[in-house]
């Protein structure tokens, strides 16, 4: 008979609920003090114990055990009935299939009748966020002043979809994702009790894959336990379609050394060995994330085996840190890109090729001489800081030949790339920010930057980031006199740029023989 492990191992007492002590503790205290609310909201990700806790609550408030501390006792008539799903006074409503106003009206009618065998009637409304707004409205009054013998528990994975009027009438408990360690502990219990042979490392793999959902972990365990052989790391990997870690590490190595052919061959090899491209991409993300953390000097927080961290440490030196966020994004996209699923490898292969380009790009940018606050190339002695220069009137500036020539929009455009480079040497975020603006105009010694949004402009102007000060400083050094920046917001970033700079227009001109009529 189909009977899933996760149903068999549903906790029957509060002590057995994993990782939600903040919830069970509070609930038990409330029970002890007799301060039971009439409406609860259990919110949290899937597989973290919401429905289970709701049933436990139903058991606890109705349990026949003498001592309040022992409730639920899991032995009395009521507890047994709940375990077997036949307590009439525990009413579980699947809000997703009964989401309309009629169902709720019906519920409202029945709420008035007193419980038939237990002290309280407990209504568990699962997937509560699926109720229609009319249904929610119909529920409001009942939730606010239910008959004394009724307790409502609303369970949902998406609390933000519950109307505020409902939220304010419920006592809310947030269930959290379980840590890998907590999931492992529970899996160990199950494995021991069920007599399933499993390698400890294999359980770690299962737990990590579950990303905080105990039900996901137990479902996977169940699936693996269906075979009689012991559960080994290798079998878990095969079931998940994971690649060997040394292979993953070699792919990253190929990435750092720009060996496209080797990388593509490794990917093909992994797939041939039975790995799923998406899972490979996920592993690459995990690995590169480790590399990134190591580069930031914080590997303690990583949830990875020691040998993997050791391997990642080697690569942390080979990969350019500024490229990593992009690499991780590329592989993350490949991991979820199922659109060309009829060629499952393709997304991963393209991500890999693009990642190589990104690495090469970052490496060349790095080896290029970093022309930081370049001294003016003219014969004039290196000017001191901008502030030390005599304040020059705007009129005089364009002629002031001490710096590297007059400040015009043309001159500025010509040097913009090297200015960006200089900014980058000082602050990566500022450079990134600067790239989103366009050069609007030059008025005297004032450079006007056009920002696509207020948000970006404000970020640039924010005195705490010192972004504007830095750019002004570098501009001043480049041109040899103090330059001030004025910021404007122009929705169209293309304004102020010659039409031919637009890649589309350029393509039309070069490839299709179009002519620019007006600039």
């Amino acid at each position, binding site marked *: *008979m*189909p*009977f*899933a492990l996760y*149903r068999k191992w549903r906790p029957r007492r509060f002590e057995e609920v994993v990782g939600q002590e903040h919830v069970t503790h509070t609930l038990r205290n409330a029970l002890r003090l007799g301060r039971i609310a009439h409406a609860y909201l259990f919110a949290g990700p*899937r*597989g973290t114990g919401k429905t289970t806790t709701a049933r436990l609550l139903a058991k606890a408030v109705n349990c026949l055990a003498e001592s309040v501390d022992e409730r639920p006792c899991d032995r009395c008539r009521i507890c047994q009935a709940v375990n077997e799903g036949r307590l009439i006074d525990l009413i579980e409503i*699947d809000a*997703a*299939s009964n*989401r309309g106003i009629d169902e709720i009206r019906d519920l409202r009618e029945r709420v008035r009748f007193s419980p038939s065998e237990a002290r309280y009637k407990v209504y568990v409304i*699962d*997937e509560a966020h*699926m109720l229609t707004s009319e249904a929610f409205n119909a529920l409001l009054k009942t939730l606010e002043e239910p008959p004394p013998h009724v307790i409502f528990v609303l369970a949902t*994975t998406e609390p933000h979809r519950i109307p505020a009027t409902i939220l304010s009438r419920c006592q809310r408990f947030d269930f959290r994702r379980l840590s890998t360690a907590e999931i492992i502990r529970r899996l160990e219990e199950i494995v021991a009790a069920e007599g399933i042979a499993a390698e400890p490392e294999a359980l770690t793999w299962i737990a990590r894959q579950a990303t905080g*959902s105990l*039900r*996901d972990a137990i*479902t996977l365990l*169940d*699936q693996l*336990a*269906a*075979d*009689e052989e012991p559960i080994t790391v290798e079998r878990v990997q*095969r079931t998940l*379609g994971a690649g060997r870690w040394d292979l993953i590490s070699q792919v990253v190595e190929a990435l750092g050394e720009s060996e*496209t*052919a*080797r990388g*593509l*061959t490794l990917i*093909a090899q992994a797939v*041939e060995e*039975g790995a*799923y491209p*998406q899972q490979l991409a996920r592993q690459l993300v995990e690995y590169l994330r480790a590399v990134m953390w190591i580069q930031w000097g914080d590997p303690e927080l990583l949830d990875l085996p020691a040998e993997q961290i050791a391997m990642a440490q080697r690569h942390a030196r080979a990969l350019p840190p500024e490229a990593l966020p992009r690499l991780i994004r590329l592989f993350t996209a490949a991991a*979820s890109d*199922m*659109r*060309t*699923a*009829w*060629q*499952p490898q*393709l997304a991963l*292969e*393209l991500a890999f*090729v*693009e990642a190589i380009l990104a690495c090469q790009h970052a490496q060349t940018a790095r080896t290029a001489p970093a022309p930081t606050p370049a001294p003016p190339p003219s014969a004039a002695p290196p000017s001191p800081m901008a502030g030390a220069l005599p304040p020059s009137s705007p009129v005089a500036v364009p002629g002031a030949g001490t710096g590297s020539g007059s400040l015009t929009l043309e001159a500025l455009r010509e040097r913009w790339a090297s200015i960006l480079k200089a900014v980058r040497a000082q602050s990566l975020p500022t450079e990134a920010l600067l790239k989103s603006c366009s050069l609007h105009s030059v008025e005297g010694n004032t450079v006007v930057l056009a920002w696509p949004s207020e948000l970006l402009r404000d970020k640039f102007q924010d005195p705490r980031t010192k972004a504007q000060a830095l750019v002004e400083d570098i501009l001043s050094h480049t041109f040899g006199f103090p330059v001030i920046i004025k910021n404007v917001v122009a929705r169209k970033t293309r304004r102020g740029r010659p039409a031919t700079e637009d890649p589309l227009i350029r*393509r039309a001109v070069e*490839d*299709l023989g179009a002519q620019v009529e007006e600039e």
Partner: protein
Amino acid sequence: MRMSRFVVGHDALLRRLERQRAEGRIAHAYLFTGPPQVGRRTLAWTWGMALLCPESDPPCGVCRSCRQMQAGHHPDALLVTPEGGSLKIDQVREVQRWIARTPVEGPYRIVVFDQAQEMTTEAASALLKTLEEPPSYAVLMLIAPSPESLLPTVVSRCQIFPLDPLPIPVVRQALQERWGLPPDPADRLARWSGGRIGWAVQAAQDPEMWSAYEERIRQIRALLTQGRTERFTFAEKLADEEEEARLAFLEAAIAWWRDVLILASGADLPLRHAEERETLREVASRTGFHRARAALEATRRAWLALQRNANARLALEAMFLDWPHA
């Protein structure tokens, strides 16, 4: 293990299912994932056939139950497909009513949801409770491209069986042994199919599909030497054709450019179009790695754009601009 008589490849998955049955650990909810035409529905239905077959080594394929399954009208098996583009909450409710009745003949009642990714959010949510705690005799199976294409709450209640495109040799062998193709065409179709057995079998039975594919490859080659005018004329013509033909052209082009990219990268990997290795190599050496990559990306972009109902002609023209001359 008799299921392999009805399913090509996927041996490891069949073994796992077989063991579940032998040990009586049959799950109540399965999710079969993978790209179209690799045999997901066949596998699911065969699994259902095995569960319902009363013989000792099921599925026997000849008993009443098996014959009913093969004909698609077993009283205890239900196939649910999207209606007008989506699986709706009413269909799920109907399934809930259907599954509530005990089996007519066999030990199980089986529901297969094809294209489960098309379930509306309402329908998927309505299914959650049934998926989690269905009646003891119920076995629910979902078919979708990937776990990510479904609600995570749905996925976490199912045992996941991922199906991949089959290895080319497996397709080749099946075409030879089960569909009686001579070695050479079997090899060609197997490679062109990229492991999609469904496509290969269709092409094996329909010579027109086959020649249409060859024609597409010829077109791709010709387009490379042609100028913009010819390419745009072709784009216009292709844009006027059926959506299916457009996508088929782009899919062939993606596979073709991937071959070029592999050759240009110097990797020694099997090619989809190995019969024209020389042409591909020439193109690879003339375009070089970067332009091959750009062309592949552009083709993939066009394919994705067409999936999203973009203006076909514009998408194709933009793609051809990124194809190099070679």
